């Protein structure tokens, strides 16, 4: 009998929907049907069935081909390579559970590495803005239950977070928003008329790259001052009307995305958005949230903040203290400046998602990929180590875009012999300790890790 598993978390985008239902085969090795998920999530679950999924590490041969090798050999290579490097870079974690992120930190500490995650090319600037200006935010339920004005600024959830608008932001009927979309005014600020902009009541099609000026105009109007007739391509009257809408909201929710973080000024665009949110709080209630990309990309920010005090770009090479300064200790800058001599790509695809030049720089040195699937990074790696898929055949904690921890479960049995990220990293750590003749430090972690199948408690 196939088994229907409910309350499954979706390991795709930062919405981390945990209302997915997955029908699995009797022997719990195949995913048969996926309910409630968007097309991307559905494809992701089905892709786990792919019979060609790698089951053994592969090592690049002198002739350029890849050859399968046993896990022990791969673990030994990874441990030795990282220990030998002057400054290894460990990057990724777009699709890894927090247990894996915690485990990798031990390796990074041991090998004096730089620890970075996908935020570095994504919402890293949001972190910089949070450092400088704080983060007046909330959980998504607050947006759903209260927000009567929703602003999408430089983000396009209809494409990047397909169920965000139906679960949290535009359509759902919340406790104080029983009429759903009817009760919400939606603003969209974007240089294109995106599918999200089409859903909005008001679309401000600004000149690309001038978000900062537009935020400043909003703030200036909010403080009762005049502004020029046109700012960033938007007429003064439109700006004033938008500010009125936000100011008169009972609860104004601002979501922002790559349109702010990938463009000129980077962090300052978000910094200004945070300032606007703060200003609005003297008139009404307002909150802001980064549309984080991956289902657990908030995870490394959390795990490494509690372990090292920084969310990303963490240089552990000093051994005595962690140092962080994006622009210096960030993956792309380290690569372009030739400041690292070993690259470990975990649960991400730097090969596809970095601009090609930093990839070329990183490829001058040993290049290792840890990922369940074949991807561009794995196909240029010196070593590819497959692991289980967090959220599909491996359970664990993930942090949703609003930093709500959700305990994901596994829906199918993992491929035999293929370890989880955590298991793999623990083995690499043990090997590093052997090689350096030091005692491993486990704290409470290792002896207690077990994942019981726990159902509802009520």
């Amino acid at each position, binding site marked *: 009998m196939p088994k229907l598993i409910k309350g499954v978390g979706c390991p795709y985008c930062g919405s981390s929907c*945990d209302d997915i239902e997955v029908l699995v085969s009797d022997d719990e090795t195949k995913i048969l049907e996926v309910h409630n998920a968007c097309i991307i999530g559905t494809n992701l679950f089905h892709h786990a069935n792919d019979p060609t999924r790698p089951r053994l590490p592969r090592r690049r041969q002198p002739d350029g081909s890849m050859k399968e090798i046993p896990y022990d050999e791969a673990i030994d290579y990874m441990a030795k390579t990282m220990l030998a490097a002057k400054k290894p870079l460990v990057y990724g974690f777009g699709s890894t559970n927090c247990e894996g992120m915690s485990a990798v930190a031990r390796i990074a500490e041991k090998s004096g590495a730089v620890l970075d995650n996908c935020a570095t090319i994504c919402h890293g600037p949001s972190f910089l803005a949070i450092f400088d200006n704080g983060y007046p935010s909330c959980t998504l339920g607050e947006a759903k239950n209260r927000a009567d004005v929703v602003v999408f600024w430089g983000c396009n959830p209809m494409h990047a977070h397909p169920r965000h608008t139906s679960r949290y932001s535009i359509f759902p009927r919340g406790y104080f928003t029983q009429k759903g979309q009817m009760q919400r005014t939606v603003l969209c600020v974007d240089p294109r008329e995106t599918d999200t902009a089409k859903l909005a009541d008001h679309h401000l099609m600004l000149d690309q790259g001038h978000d900062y000026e537009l935020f400043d105009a909003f703030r200036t109007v909010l403080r009762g001052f005049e502004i020029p007739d046109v700012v960033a391509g938007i007429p003064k009257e439109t700006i004033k009307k938008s500010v009125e809408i936000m100011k008169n909201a009972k609860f104004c929710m601002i979501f922002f995305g790559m349109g702010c973080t990938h463009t000129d000024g980077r962090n300052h665009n978000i910094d200004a958005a945070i300032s606007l949110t703060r200003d609005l709080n003297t008139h009404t209630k307002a909150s802001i949230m980064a549309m984080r990309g991956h289902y657990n990309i908030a995870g490394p920010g959390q795990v490494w903040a509690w372990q*090292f005090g920084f969310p990303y770009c963490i240089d552990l090479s000093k051994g005595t203290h962690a140092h962080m300064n994006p622009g210096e200790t960030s993956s792309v800058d380290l690569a372009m400046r030739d400041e690292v001599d070993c690259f470990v790509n975990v649960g991400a695809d730097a090969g596809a998602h970095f601009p090609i030049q930093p990839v070329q720089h990183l490829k001058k040195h040993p290049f290792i990929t840890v990922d369940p699937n074949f991807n561009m990074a794995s196909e240029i790696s010196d070593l590819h180590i497959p692991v289980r898929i967090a959220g599909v055949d491996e359970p664990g904690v993930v942090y949703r875009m609003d*930093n709500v*921890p959700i305990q994901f479960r596994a829906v199918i049995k993992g491929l035999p012999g293929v370890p989880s990220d955590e298991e793999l990293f623990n083995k690499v750590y043990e090997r590093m300790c052997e090689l350096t003749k030091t005692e491993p430090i486990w*704290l409470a972690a290792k002896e207690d890790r077990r*994942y019981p199948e726990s159902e509802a408690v009520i």
Partner: protein
Amino acid sequence: MASGEMIVKGGFIIDPTRKIDGDVGDVAIKDGKIVDKVSSSAKVIDAKGKIVMAGAVDVHSHVAGPKVNAGRLMRPEDKFISGVFRSGMAQKNGYRMESGFSIPSVFKTGYDYARMGYTFVMEAAMPPLLAPHTHEEIHDTPIIDEAALPVFANNWFVMEYLRKGEVENTASYIAWLLKATKGYGVKLVNPGGTAAWAWGLNCLSLNDPVPYFEITPAEIIKGLIEANEYLGLPHSVHLHQNNLGNPGNYPDTIAALKIAEGFKARNKFGREQVMHSTHLQFHSYGGEGWKDFCSKAKEVMDYVNKQKNITIDLGCVTLDETTTMTADGPFEHHLHSLNHLKWTNVDVEMETAAGIVPYIYDKNVTPNAVQWATGLELALFAKDMNRTFITTDHPNAGPFTRYPRVIKWLMSKKAREATIATMKNSDKMIGLTNIHTMDRELTLFEIAQMTRSGPAKCLGLGNVYGGLAPGMNADVGIFDLNYKNLPSDAEKIETAFQRAACFIKGGEVIVRDGEVVSHGHKKTVWVKVKMPENPQVTRDVSQAFTQGTYTVDIRNYPVREYLAPHQSVIDVNVEA
């Protein structure tokens, strides 16, 4: 737990649980517990010329969880200030990296508490929805035993039930939530005010109605005391009062304390209070504004001294640059509007909120100096030190690593005067406080009450922590102070308590000469209430999930077993 025998020999023992004050003696340890005696083959630890106390217990500290971490995340400059890394008392190789000052990393938190001889720390506010996060951090914090208090006073279920006067349903909900979150007890933060903050409002007085819920803070406090005593939990309600931090707030404080009048503790854990009022320093202010902002510690303590069913902790300001963080969302917004530093806020659906703002307590700013004096005065006016506990509301009034400094100030008038002498407006501060006129110097016995026996009893843990009687946990701190001949230089008191000469936890030596030498065996402590199922509450809770007021699935809400390492579960049985 270490097996084997050990004996701490020849120290000056200070154990208020047995009224021992400085007697020279031995402490025998076997299998992680304190015992009457051990064989001659026991490992000997020499404590001659030093004081010996039980492991210390922190009743209120923000060390793990979402807002603590949001604070770490938003403050790189807490790690690296003016071009200098602040990793503090960092260990040598063989230990995890340490970082941070006011909001240390989990590793540093565990190591620093251990270095000061602390064995148990209560995380003072856990948002239930984010409980897995709190437990993940506790999981990664070495050495110290920890528990966490879920926040209840702005929870929609609680406010709904209490508005209708349904104490039993409230109690059943508490029982369910403690189990789901692996929580320890009932925390109240700005009752009603935090819920109002979801709309940008606040409840400053006890009688301000909470928007939509038609209930007042006073009713929430009273109802939760009733529910807490109905269940007979090990700890009482743990109250962060309304109107925190504002000039002239002390009448509200006393009014809230008065709600406890007439209630009697009902439990099997030796707890006597029905209300723990936390970080009282922030609630003991007079004046109408910042100009005449003054200490009302005497007025507040006059009331506390009379009421046997109340305990308090101090929340001492340590005059550091620190990070304020509290579930009192509206307060943090207010504070940000005063100092204009960065502000983080996290409203948590249906449950609570939190705010975070960096803050510099500057001894040359008169209100900060008054706050410093107020915290110390509370202790110096206290009559029963077993009901008065040392805290800094870490990291709100200062980092927990300053406890030894607080102890120094409490034990030495000279040290207090030395600090006053460095203040730019010392005369002004003296006029607004009592501290300069107070000669009292606390004794080591009183310090042990305030940091060991008292808080342990208050938490209902007096049978395992806070004393050196046989049967209790073998948590023993040895500090380099000669009881018969205390140093005239009070700095040496601070140094001695900063780094224990030796700290034994669960029968294992954890710290030697101020350095961590073992990661020990930490525990997560939580309270499991066994009571008959309440169908109404079961239905209400599941509806909040199925009808989508929450945005997570109920199956993913309760904290899974593996996240909480080495659980130490306290069972509470409630009969039908």
